[in-house]
């Protein structure tokens, strides 16, 4: 481990990506992720990489497609409206099985929205977003430290499974400053060796490599889908990541990710002081979603509260996971507003009273 540094989330992620051996960064300015782009433009060219400011998010994601397809570790970052523009490219990346890292520092929407933090892109991130049947591995950091950690993890997961990995942060995580330490990281060569499939030119006259998502015969297209789905099942089995707090004796369980998990943590502490037995489950991977963990917890706790900075998106996955065993309630703020611990506490109190009444 290196020394402690005080950094912005966006910058920490950028620095971590450079340490993870990113060879190319392609991006377009949009608040609240621009520091990531700026950090890359300043640092990456001096440290063996390439920085290009593209003319749009559409161009950025397709530059990622090209360079990653040629075997490089590359990434792009954006915020919500830009993420919408990237969806077509992401669908192509997923189908063509090109590994890369995409960062979405979410802001309030829909439309041009606000520049304040939000979690309104959950569906878009987790349920596909672009056309066709595909999934991204979605990592949801909740601290500046995790912004950095997930950059390393993201590249490794992308290369392991040949999938695009999405780091789903929000404006607050991107902008906040915290002290962090960068872990020691060594690029694993077996992950970065892509000579089996990358389009590098037919070195030594080897067979032609083609990266395409066009399969005109439906049988072939279905087979491509089956291969993808098999991979997704493997990811679901192996890569679920989450964190739990006080779930051993909890009656009420908060499920929250990213920034709302931090607010929920505060609410949990306040509730515990009042004697409410509250626990917290924080998914670190939104896809694959910790459904089994939640299903098991639903046997122990009495009620679940999902807290999000959206109109209620992850709550649907929680409901699916608990299979109706216990009530699932929701508290959310939208459009760039952040839930307050007191409001969550009020909600917890009410839930607790109704639990006692049962």
């Amino acid at each position: 481990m290196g020394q402690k540094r005080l950094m912005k989330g966006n910058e920490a992620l950028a620095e971590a990506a450079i340490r993870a051996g990113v060879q190319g960064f392609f991006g377009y300015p949009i608040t609240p992720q621009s520091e990531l782009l700026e950090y890359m433009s300043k640092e990456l060219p001096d440290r063996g990489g390439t920085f290009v400011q593209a003319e749009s998010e559409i161009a950025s994601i397709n530059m990622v497609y090209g360079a990653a397809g040629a075997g490089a570790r590359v990434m792009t970052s954006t915020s919500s409206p830009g993420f919408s523009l990237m969806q077509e490219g992401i669908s192509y990346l997923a189908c063509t099985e090109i590994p890369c890292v995409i960062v979405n520092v979410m802001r309030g929407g829909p439309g041009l929205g606000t520049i304040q933090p939000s979690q309104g892109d959950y569906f878009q991130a987790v349920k596909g977003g672009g056309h066709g049947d595909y999934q991204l591995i979605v990592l949801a950091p909740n601290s500046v430290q995790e912004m950095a950690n997930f950059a390393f993890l993201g590249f490794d997961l992308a290369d392991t499974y040949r999938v695009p990995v999405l780091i789903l942060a929000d404006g607050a995580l991107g902008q906040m400053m915290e002290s962090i330490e960068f872990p020691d990281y060594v690029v694993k060569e077996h992950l970065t060796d892509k000579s089996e499939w990358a389009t590098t030119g037919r070195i030594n006259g080897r067979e032609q490599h083609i990266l395409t998502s066009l399969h005109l015969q439906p049988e072939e297209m279905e087979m491509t889908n089956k291969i993808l789905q098999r991979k997704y099942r493997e990811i679901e089995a192996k890569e679920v990541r989450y964190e739990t707090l006080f779930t051993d004796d909890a009656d009420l369980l908060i499920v929250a990710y990213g920034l709302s998990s931090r607010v929920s943590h505060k609410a949990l502490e306040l509730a515990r002081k009042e004697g409410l037995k509250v626990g917290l489950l924080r998914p670190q991977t939104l896809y694959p979603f910790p459904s089994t963990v939640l299903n098991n917890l639903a046997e122990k706790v009495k009620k679940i509260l999902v807290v999000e900075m959206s109109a209620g998106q992850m709550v649907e996955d929680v409901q699916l996971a608990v299979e109706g065993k216990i009530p699932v309630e929701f508290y959310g703020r939208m459009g760039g507003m952040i839930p307050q611990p007191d409001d969550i506490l009020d909600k917890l109190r009410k839930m607790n009273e109704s639990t006692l009444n049962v």
Partner: protein
Amino acid sequence: MYNMVDVYISERILTPDKSMDKVWERPDLLIDVPNHYCPGCSHSVVHRLLMEVVEELDIMERTIGIAPVGCSVLAYDYLNVDMQEAAHGRATACASGIKRVFPDKIVFTYQGDGDLAAIGTSETIHTVNRGENIVMVFINNGIYGMTGGQMAPTTLEGAKTSTCPEGRNLDLMGHPIKIADMIALLDGAYYVTRQAVHNSKTVRKTKKALLKAFQYQIDGKGGTSFVEIVSNCPSGWKMTPLEANDWLAKNMFEYYPLGNIKIPQKEE
């Protein structure tokens, strides 16, 4: 490969004497399969020229091509080099990504008019403006061939397509876009030329232009090389191949004149 016995029936087919030397044959890099293009289509001529150029410059081991969306979406089935298939209009963005991270690779894009001059105009302009050291091959046949002959940005005034059945009306549908002339204005453009492949003379010229364009890239000259090829679309234009080439020569060249639009300054 095929049973050819049935050919030689009554027509007297002449064959070469054994003492003759082979002076021209299909390039090895053009994959030995029949192509899907319609009879007489310019696409397949340009495919062949590209592979001749890659062979002659001996750059196969570092060449990466980008196929577009359009009739040539399956270009990688014929061009035996590493290829990526890009989203519609985004070929030059993909090429930029590759070339920036791997400057030693030789990267070319192959795009039609819909891909390069309509949906991908932004990528086209900005790729050239950044002076990406790539070769862009632009097939301009004034129509969307693959989707069944709709109006393209380059469709000539009065030309009938399935989405302008009465002929292109400039007041309603805008003007045919001269994208090569547009990008020649950009400082990032190094070599911009407009060629054709409708007869042997123009094929020879186009080959030379392509050779130049790739050589500039190999030499690492500063800027994008852009080779527009005014092409036919017999099926889309609803003509025989001969009629199509005739129509092309009579109508297209007036609006899209052949020749160099921008050449490197010291060669002027």
